C-alpha cells in the first residue's frame, strides 16, 4: 500500500537503526515513552526494540483506548445493555474488556443482552432508524480520533430528530493523560519511571495537531516528536529524540508531516467543541481520576446523552488484583512482570484490558514479543 510499504523498507530500517546506534551516547541512557497504542503495536510487531542500542529504552504509555476504560464504566455499560428494550452498540474490542467479577459485554450478550458490534458510529445511527422500537445506545470510547465520528452521529441524530438514539460518552483526551504521567509521583518523587521524551501519537495528532504538545515541551522540558506508525516513522522519531536529548533541546517536532498539520483538523475540532464539553474529572484504568481529561455531551444535546436519559450510575470498581495493567499503563511495569501473563491471561481469555486490543501492551507482547524473549534467553 502506498505510504506504508516504502516505510517498511528493510534496508532503510537497518541503516536508520545503525545511525541511531551511532549517535546515541553509549554511556548515556535514553528513555522514551510512546504514548499511543498504535505505536506500541508497531514497535512489537516489527521488533523495533531489538534494533535499538542498549542505552535506549522504549516505555509503553496509556494510549490504548480500550485499555484505559475503567472497570466501573464497563460495569455501567453492561447494566445498560441488560435493560429491557436497550440495544447497546460498540466497537469490537470493547466487548471483551473485563468488567468486575469476570463479566464483559460479550458475556452479557451470550446471556441474552442485545449488544451489537459496529464498525462506525453511523452503523449505530442506522440501527436506531431501522428499529424505532429499540432504545439504541452508542457506547462511545476512545481518544480524539474517535470523538469526531461520535460528534457527527449526534449531530445527525439531532437533525433527524431521532428519539431512540443516545450516546454513553467515555471519550478522553490525550494531553490530559500525558500531563498526569508527567505529574505522577512515580516520575517526580519516587524515580521509578524516567522519561526523557515522548513519541507523539499519529492519528490523534491528525485531529489535535502538534500545538497542544508545546506545553509539555516547555513546562516539563521534554522533547516530543509526533510520528507515524510504520517502522521507519518510529525509528526516525527515535533518532530525532536522541538528537534533541544530545543537544539539550526540548521541542515539538513533527516526523509525520505527511498526515499531521500544526493545527490539526479544524472541521473535526469545531464539531467536537460544538457538541462536547469537559468533565471536571474522569477515571482512567491505571491512572485513577484525571482532572479535565474526559468529555460529556453539552446541555444543548442532553436529549442524546445516555447518562441523563437512563440515570447511569458509574461506581468505581477495583481491577483484578493480580492484573498489572495499571502499572503497565503508567510505564512502571512490563507485561512479562505480570504473573498471569501467558498462563491464565491470553488474548482468548483476557484478565485485564491490556490483553484485549491489538494495541494493548500485553496483547502486543503476547503476539510478537514473547518468542523474542525466548530467543534472547536461548541465545
Amino acid at each position, binding site marked *: *500500500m*502506498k*505510504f506504508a510499504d*516504502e*516505510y517498511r523498507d528493510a*534496508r*532503510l530500517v537497518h*541503516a*536508520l537503526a*545503525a*545511525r541511531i546506534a551511532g549517535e546515541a551516547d553509549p554511556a548515556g541512557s535514553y528513555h522514551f515513552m510512546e504514548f499511543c497504542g498504535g505505536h506500541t503495536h508497531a514497535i512489537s510487531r516489527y521488533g523495533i526494540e531489538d534494533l535499538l542500542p542498549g542505552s535506549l529504552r522504549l516505555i509503553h504509555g496509556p494510549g490504548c483506548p480500550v485499555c484505559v476504560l475503567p472497570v466501573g464504566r464497563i460495569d455501567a455499560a453492561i447494566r445498560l445493555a441488560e435493560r429491557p428494550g436497550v440495544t447497546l452498540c460498540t*466497537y469490537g474490542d470493547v466487548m471483551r474488556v473485563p468488567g468486575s467479577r469476570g463479566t464483559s459485554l460479550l458475556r452479557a450478550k451470550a446471556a441474552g443482552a442485545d449488544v451489537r458490534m459496529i*464498525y*462506525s*458510529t*453511523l452503523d449505530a445511527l442506522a440501527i436506531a432508524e431501522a428499529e424505532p422500537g429499540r432504545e439504541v445506545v452508542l457506547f462511545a470510547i*476512545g481518544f480524539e*480520533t*474517535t470523538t*469526531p*465520528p461520535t460528534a*457527527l452521529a449526534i*449531530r*445527525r441524530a439531532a*437533525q433527524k430528530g431521532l428519539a431512540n438514539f443516545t450516546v454513553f460518552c467515555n471519550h478522553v483526551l490525550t494531553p490530559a493523560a500525558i500531563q498526569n504521567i508527567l505529574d505522577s509521583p512515580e516520575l517526580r518523587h519516587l524515580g521509578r519511571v524516567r522519561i526523557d521524551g515522548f513519541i507523539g501519537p499519529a*492519528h490523534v495528532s*491528525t*485531529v489535535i495537531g502538534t500545538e497542544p504538545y508545546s506545553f509539555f515541551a516547555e513546562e516539563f522540558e521534554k522533547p516530543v516528536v509526533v510520528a507515524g506508525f510504520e517502522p*521507519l516513522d518510529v525509528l*526516525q522519531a527515535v533518532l530525532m529524540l536522541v538528537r534533541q536529548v544530545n543537544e539539550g533541546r526540548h521541542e515539538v517536532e513533527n*516526523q509525520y*508531516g*505527511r*498526515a*499531521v*498539520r500544526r493545527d490539526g*483538523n479544524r*472541521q*473535526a475540532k469545531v*464539531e467536537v467543541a460544538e457538541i462536547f464539553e469537559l468533565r471536571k474529572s474522569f477515571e482512567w484504568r491505571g491512572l485513577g481520576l484525571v482532572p479535565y481529561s474526559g468529555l460529556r455531551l453539552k446541555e444543548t444535546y442532553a436529549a442524546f446523552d445516555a447518562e441523563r436519559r437512563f440515570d447511569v450510575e458509574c461506581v468505581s470498581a477495583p481491577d483484578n488484583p493480580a492484573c498489572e495493567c495499571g502499572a503497565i499503563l503508567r510505564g512502571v511495569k512490563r507485561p512479562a512482570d505480570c504473573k498471569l501473563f501467558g498462563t491464565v491471561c491470553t488474548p482468548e481469555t483476557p484478565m485485564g484490558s491490556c490483553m484485549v486490543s491489538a494495541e494493548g501492551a500485553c496483547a502486543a507482547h503476547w503476539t510478537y514479543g514473547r518468542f523474542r524473549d525466548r530467543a534472547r534467553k536461548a541465545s
Partner: protein
Amino acid sequence: MSGDDPVLRSGKVDFGGVAKEINLSYVPEARVGDHVLVHVGFALTVIDEAEAARVFASLQEIAGLDAARAEAER
C-alpha cells in the same frame, strides 16, 4: 464520491485492493485520487504527497550516506 450534504459526503476508499465506503465530512478538501488516513470509517486527514516524498528522500539520504561510509571504511 457522493453526497451534497457535507455531513454525508462519502467516498470509496481503496485499502490495498478492498474498497470501502468512507465518510469524508472532516476532509472537505479531499478530491478523487487523494490518499486519506481513515479511522473507524472516517477520513481524518489527506496525505500530503510532496511532504511524504521529501521525508522519504531524507531517509534515503541517511541510508545512502551510511552505506557510502561503510564502503569507504572497507
